[in-house]
């Protein structure tokens, strides 16, 4: 996987634009979902994703191949998401259509409501805590990977994750979600 990415990066750097398209195809869903979970807005998710890939393309020459490409990509994606969310200072509801389509995986309206309620509660968390929940639960990354992406020690990742979970529990309890 890593070798594949490196090959594609090298092909892109040597002027093969179709190679970069393969990178976009491979990672756009991952970046979009990260951005969407951070911003909770479909259009913002798309805008952030576009801006992430543009930045990746422009900075590809500075990518250090001794690191994993996806960690580098994630770091850019997290930063772009945080920048946009901080700039906007707002948290919008997901579009009705998306919420209906994507947040009722078991087709149970009640279960979908709980999932959406927890996701909404997530917006109440400070960005530093929200991002660890998103990376751990929605992106399924290890502590080590999160530490690399956020550039913080693994111990801090764990403590932030625990704090984020307890804070989220408190919000959900207050709202009667869990």
């Amino acid at each position: 996987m890593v070798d594949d990415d490196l090959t594609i990066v090298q092909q892109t750097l040597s002027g093969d634009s179709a190679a970069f398209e393969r990178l976009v195809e491979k990672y756009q869903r991952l970046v979009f979902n990260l951005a969407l979970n951070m911003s909770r807005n479909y259009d913002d998710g798309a805008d952030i994703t576009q801006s992430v890939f543009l930045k990746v393309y422009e900075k590809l020459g500075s990518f250090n191949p001794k690191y994993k490409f996806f960690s580098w990509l994630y770091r850019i994606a997290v930063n772009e998401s945080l920048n946009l969310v901080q700039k906007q200072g707002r948290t919008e509801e997901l579009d009705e259509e998306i919420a209906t389509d994507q947040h009722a995986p078991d087709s149970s309206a009640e279960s979908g409501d709980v999932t959406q309620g927890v996701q909404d509660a997530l917006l109440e968390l400070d960005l530093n805590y929200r991002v660890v929940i998103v990376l751990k639960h929605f992106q399924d990354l290890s502590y080590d990977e999160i530490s690399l992406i956020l550039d913080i020690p693994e111990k801090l990742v764990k403590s932030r994750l625990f704090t984020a979970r307890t804070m989220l529990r408190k919000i959900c309890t207050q709202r009667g979600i869990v």
Partner: protein
Amino acid sequence: MMTEEQFAELLNRELDGLNSRQESEELKAYVQTNAEARELYQDLLKLSIVLNRVEEVEPPGFLKADIMEAVRASRNAARSESSLLAWVREFIESRTSFQYAYVFAAGLIVGIAIYSLVGVHPTTSGVVDPADVSGSIIINDAAYPFTAGPGFEFNNETESISGSVRSKYSRNIAVVEMSLRTRVETAIVVHFDPSSVRFKGYSQSLPGTSVQQIEEKLFRVTTQDENHYILAFERVSQVPSEVTVSIASGGRELQQKSVLLGELGK
């Protein structure tokens, strides 16, 4: 007995499916003995299940095309920029004289920088170019409380020249304000004693057609319309300083009066 930190660590790992069977049993045994810990464990477990149930959302179909379009635009912009730079470089390299121009320009920049750092810039000795000292004067009355000094009005109906002179001073600053309304060429000359006040600058409220001249002991302004002037002096002496203002037109002196800028500290 398990510490809070150990409990948090074990609980985190349990929620993330990283505990060994022994660690899981240790955690479960602990929560059986602690009601608060048990409640937290159960709530976080439920929360974790809900969070892990969130499914990925399909990005919009147009997203990839939009990204590639943005990338193409960025690449084209970079190409035009680099081709322009290449053209400039080639242009410069093909002309040896440009390299000498660079050396000259670099020398000039260094020279200006050194001059501005160590050069001496006289402001009141000899004749001063008004362009060097003109501008806006902002006087903060709160920071420098002023005492109103003497002043006078003048009105020459024959020549249709009128105006006023006002003065004010603080411990370190003296200000002379002059208003003038005229339709013929008129000169106001302000004489001052540089041993007690040092001229620091002037300002006029309208661009007008005024012509200023500043010398070691006098300030002269010539105009043919309406304007308002402020002259600022730094006080350097302990004695009151006399400033004489004269108004002249058509080679005739119409008015001359002195104002005494008060004693320091008063």
